[in-house]
């Protein structure tokens, strides 16, 4: 077993995982075990607890000022969350994207200021390409002008035309930069000596991990809003009793459900077939749209309180705005997906959606 088990005293059995993989691979077998297996529940709880334990206001503020949250990352690494997709033979947990999803969703819910999504995505690309996996946190970038945590000396997996390269940018010449989420995004020089390039779609994997994070953050925004609407009194009653607020939160609940489903669907598709181009594009579009609506509704519900530094809401909404745009906005992915749909043809639309491509 990977480190996750050793460190947290969870006891998922390897045999159950193997069984499940075997079933999914069986020819003609479309069904799958329930998404939330016991193992996956335990992974989710571990991640939840870890972020809850290590993230307080002070840590967040320090991270947003540029301090590396060492204790948090060390706990992540000690529990092997960053290596969830790395095979056991090479020291990882040997999980799949459905496992990665519950970790990334938890990271999103907690707006965790560490490159966990980047590390998970990069480690998968490296593993798929059969490349050596560097130690420590990794970055993942499809744009040399905004590389996550480049200043912190992490190793970068960056897109290079349709392939990718691995590099470790010198931190000395990198000007600091950050996104709206106040997570570091720095420009790196492109004149590094690339090692060999590898096959792998950085933009797609980046879009996938961001979709998973957004699913978590949107769900958490809903949670904050519903709780607040039940507590905050205006005009003599909780604001959640006003029909206008109720209608807004009903919309938000739908967005949260859609974001969660879209991201999970993409993870499952990638696990199952290795080709999730349609599902990843759909996930980035749908979670991004949900993110936009969630931020707008939440700030409307919270009013001035939600606009203060003191309230937790903005840790989520600022990151949602950033994640929406990173690794391709909804427009970018919608054009890509729309082109694929149109190219496969109108009469293939339904067969493609249902996964049955020809009448028998």
């Amino acid at each position: 077993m990977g480190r996750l088990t050793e460190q947290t005293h969870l006891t998922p059995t390897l045999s159950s995982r193997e069984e499940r993989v075997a079933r999914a691979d069986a020819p003609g077998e479309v069904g799958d075990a329930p998404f939330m297996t016991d193992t996956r529940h335990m992974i989710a709880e571990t991640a939840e607890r870890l972020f809850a334990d290590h993230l307080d206001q002070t840590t967040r503020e320090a991270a947003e000022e540029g301090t590396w949250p060492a204790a948090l990352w060390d706990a992540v690494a000690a529990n092997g969350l960053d290596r969830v997709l790395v095979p056991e033979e090479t020291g990882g947990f040997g999980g799949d994207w459905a496992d990665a999803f519950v970790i990334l969703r938890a990271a999103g819910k907690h707006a965790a200021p560490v490159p966990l999504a980047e590390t998970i995505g990069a480690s998968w690309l490296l593993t798929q390409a059969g490349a050596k996996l560097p130690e420590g946190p990794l970055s993942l970038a499809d744009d040399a002008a905004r590389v996550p945590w480049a200043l912190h000396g992490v190793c970068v997996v960056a897109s290079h035309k349709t392939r990718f390269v691995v590099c470790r940018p010198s931190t000395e010449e990198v000007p600091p930069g950050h996104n709206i989420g106040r997570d570091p995004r720095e420009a790196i020089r492109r004149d590094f000596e690339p090692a060999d390039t590898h096959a792998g779609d950085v933009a797609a994997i980046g879009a996938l991990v961001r979709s998973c994070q957004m699913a978590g953050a949107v769900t958490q925004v809903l949670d904050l809003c519903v709780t607040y609407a039940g507590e905050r009194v205006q005009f003599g009653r909780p604001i959640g009793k006003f029909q206008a607020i109720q209608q807004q939160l009903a919309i938000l609940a739908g967005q949260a459900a859609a974001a969660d489903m879209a991201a999970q669907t993409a993870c499952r598709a990638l696990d199952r077939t290795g080709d999730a181009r349609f599902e990843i594009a759909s996930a980035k579009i749908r979670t991004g749209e949900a993110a936009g609506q969630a931020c707008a509704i939440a700030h409307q519900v919270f009013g001035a309180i939600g606009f203060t530094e003191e309230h937790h809401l903005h840790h989520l909404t600022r990151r949602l705005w950033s994640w929406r745009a990173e690794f391709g906005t909804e427009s970018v992915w919608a054009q890509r997906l729309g082109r694929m749909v149109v190219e496969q043809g109108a009469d293939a639309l339904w067969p493609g959606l249902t996964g049955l491509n020809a009448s028998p």
Partner: protein
Amino acid sequence: MPSLTFEPCDLPPEAEALRGEARAFLDAELKGFPVAARARSWVGFDAGFSRKLGAQGWLGMTWPEPWGRNASALERYVVIEELLAAGAPVAAHWIAERQSGPLLLRFGTDEQRERILPGIAAGETYFCIGMSEPDSGSDLASIRSKAVRAEVNGEPGWVVNGRKVWTTYAQHSHWMIALLRTGEAGENRHGGTSQFLIDLSSPGVEVRPIRNMIGDEEFNEVTFDEVFVPDAMRIGAEGEGWQQVTAELAFERSGPDRFLSAFALLVELVRFVGTLPPEAVAGAHDAVGRLYAHLSTLRALSISVATQLDAGADPALEAAVVKDMGVAFEQSIPEIAQQILGVAPRVAGGSDFEAALAYVQQACVSFSLRGGTTEIMRGVIARGLGLR
């Protein structure tokens, strides 16, 4: 906080096994069926087609023997979504098979089942629903049509007076399941109503079709003037009408008809975008991509709810969420199509795509009326979130 439960689910192999068969049947049956007719889908009334579906064993398939063959709700789900995606004319049997049959299985008597279910399963017996009244749209507690106990020629029964509106295809239906006042409402406003099976050929029943704005006669006004209904045709317990109806409404909310009503138009939209010159295509691709993302997500959510229903859970909140988003999705399609098409849809004198667009543009305003308005759906969701 009460939370929504949407696990991603696959349709099981026994359900998927039906897909190819259904698709082959539809390919053959609907060969040459025009796009504008496909765009009507579950509003298209074709008794002959319904009988063929009955002959295939695809109506009432989930019902227990001897009425059905105990198929899972997910097998039925596959058949239904194939029908809707093909734009098959399913209106004739739609309500009978989806709502009335299940209601009788749950609350009806053996006599009622024996008399009625075989006809539904054969695609020959059609139903309409009598809930709304002129002064009560969404507010079912305010209905006034009355059933009063009476005995006629020695048979115990009820005399019904009143009026029902918005009854879909009452003019072609054999039976109405009517919600009628049989007593005082009581404190919670929801008591005092009961459900009845009313034979629409009974003396005193008058059916008046109401043309809708598209020119179709889909809705009807049904008037009851001293109509005798035998007590044997009461469904469930006296005074339990509201509870039974509420359960019935939940069946309606999360099926594939909540996001596939306009699927035929979507197919033509994709076809049209394929003919656009490269310089005009970026915006169209963008729109198609977003529509696809919404549709695929809605379908995954709907299958998740269907799986929960099949497992005996009660995902009423989740069903309301799917309905609310499904309607918003369907209503966005003509808007998007029109902006992409760049010209006006035409009712007559134009292309298939234009005619389908013209139909859906008008019909889509009614999508949100069926099974609860948008305000009401969002109220249900808010209650589920613990806000009400």
